[in-house]
């Protein structure tokens, strides 16, 4: 039972990060109808910024200060998103989808090179926070307290996003823009402004995903592509453009990955891809997506 509980916590840990990345990807697609392939490296950018802030700029600082500085990566990714949307993406909205895919894929590559240039080829770690947070004993086995913090942040982020999108005025205008951009603009909604806000929020989520993961594992250059692939599996299962879908998809992928690591490690990724393929066959729009 305790063995099962630890695996459940690990699954939730994985799901918390995946939800933040896939939720941001889904939010951006839902509002702007752009599949942002650069999203993986915005997650990696958040990880690098937080790793640099905690591991270099604030090295040796007390733990509460490190916790306060943890969202630095999220803020960094959000600022980057606020610059990228109007300058690089906006000129391509009226072009065919393949141009948008090409430009976001190019951006994925460029961001990878920028991180390589700024932070070098070696992993950047900020494990002090993870180490200083201590551990709790579960059935005689130590379990890192920091992992519980990550799970809590994932849960709080999901609740905050649900409230933000469904219970605030901004959320209503955001949903209106996502459902009919032309009509929203004819009612006085500044669509360009909504787009930059939605993109910034999506990047903030990706950056937060990177920021919270980096104390327990180093920031490395290919982490963005790995995360992008996994978050695509999440949105294929949950439905691209749906936040509920991103949450349920992240939980499913988190549980299956953890089960895979425990019982069938050789075919862990194959099982995930097969699941995504099965969902595509049975429900092409995903579990929570709406067929168009």
């Amino acid at each position: 039972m305790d063995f099962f509980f630890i695996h459940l916590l690990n699954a939730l840990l994985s799901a918390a990060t995946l939800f933040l990345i896939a939720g941001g990807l889904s939010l951006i697609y839902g509002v702007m109808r752009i599949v942002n392939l650069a999203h993986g490296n915005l997650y990696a950018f958040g990880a690098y910024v937080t790793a640099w802030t905690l591991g270099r700029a604030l090295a040796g600082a007390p733990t509460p200060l490190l916790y306060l500085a943890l969202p630095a990566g999220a803020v960094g990714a959000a600022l980057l998103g606020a610059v990228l949307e109007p300058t690089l993406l906006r000129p391509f909205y009226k072009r065919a989808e393949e141009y948008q895919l090409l430009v976001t894929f190019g951006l994925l590559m460029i961001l990878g090179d920028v991180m390589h240039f700024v932070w070098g080829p070696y992993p950047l770690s900020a494990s002090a926070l993870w180490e200083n947070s201590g551990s709790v004993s579960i059935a005689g086995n130590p379990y890192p307290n920091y992992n519980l913090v990550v799970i809590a942040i994932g849960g709080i982020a999901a609740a905050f996003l649900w409230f933000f999108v469904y219970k605030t005025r901004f959320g209503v205008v955001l949903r209106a823009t996502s459902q009919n951009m032309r009509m929203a603009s004819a009612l006085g909604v500044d669509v360009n402004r909504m787009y930059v806000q939605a993109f910034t929020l999506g990047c903030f989520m990706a950056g937060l995903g990177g920021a919270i993961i980096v104390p327990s594992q180093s920031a490395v250059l290919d982490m963005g592509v790995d995360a992008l692939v996994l978050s695509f599996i999440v949105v294929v299962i949950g439905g691209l453009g749906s936040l509920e879908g991103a949450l349920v998809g992240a939980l499913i992928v988190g549980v299956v990955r953890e089960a895979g690591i425990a019982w069938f490690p050789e075919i862990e990724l194959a099982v995930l891809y097969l699941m995504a393929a099965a969902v595509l066959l049975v429900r092409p729009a995903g579990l929570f997506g709406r067929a168009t």
Partner: protein
Amino acid sequence: MLELERIDTFRGQAQILRTVSLRVGEREAVCLVGRNGAGKTTTIDSIMGLLPLRAGRVTFGGRDITRLAAHQRARLGIGYAPEDCGIFPDLTVEENFQITEWLKGPAAAVGDDGYERIFSVFPEVKGFLTRRGLHLSGGQKKMVAITRAMTLSPTVLLLDEPFEGLAPVVVSRFIEAVTTIKAMGISVLIAESNLVNATRVADRLYAIDRGEIIFNGLPRDVFANHDVMRTIRG
């Protein structure tokens, strides 16, 4: 009030409007009649800023708005109800109405009196405020689209095919609503393919064919113009 001066509009490579000039005066109901594909919706979209002009200009209240974006035109007081109603399917009817309110901010809020005035056009809308746009009938969608455009406190209202697909008895109800809107001092421009409906509501008519205005005059005069009648009726 609202004036188009020799506008040319394209959709992709195809020129749809050719030197279209049109004027809507204060407290006036003007109908733009023409067959399907004549250029009615393109004219409305050009006024709303949803399509860019290649030539000509649009003025509103004496101000040149040709280069303004759609949201800026809406905020100046141009209300718009499109042919497909444009109801946000996942929002409730009430949320559909609140969008303009929230954008204007509390200082310019419509207020309870304002809402009573808006709902006086279609009081039946109050009965389905909590229903989602997805679950409305065709007639209800048209009512919501017009009421929603009224929440902008417009000085001119652009209605694209407001009577299309409605039963004759319901059309009468909508014509009554347009009369109520006009009585509030709001100008109305209606794109309409049914000439009889148009003459029931319009103070003045424009007829459009193949992107060109072919008639401008009083409703009673259009019936005497055989060339225009032949063109409109096909």
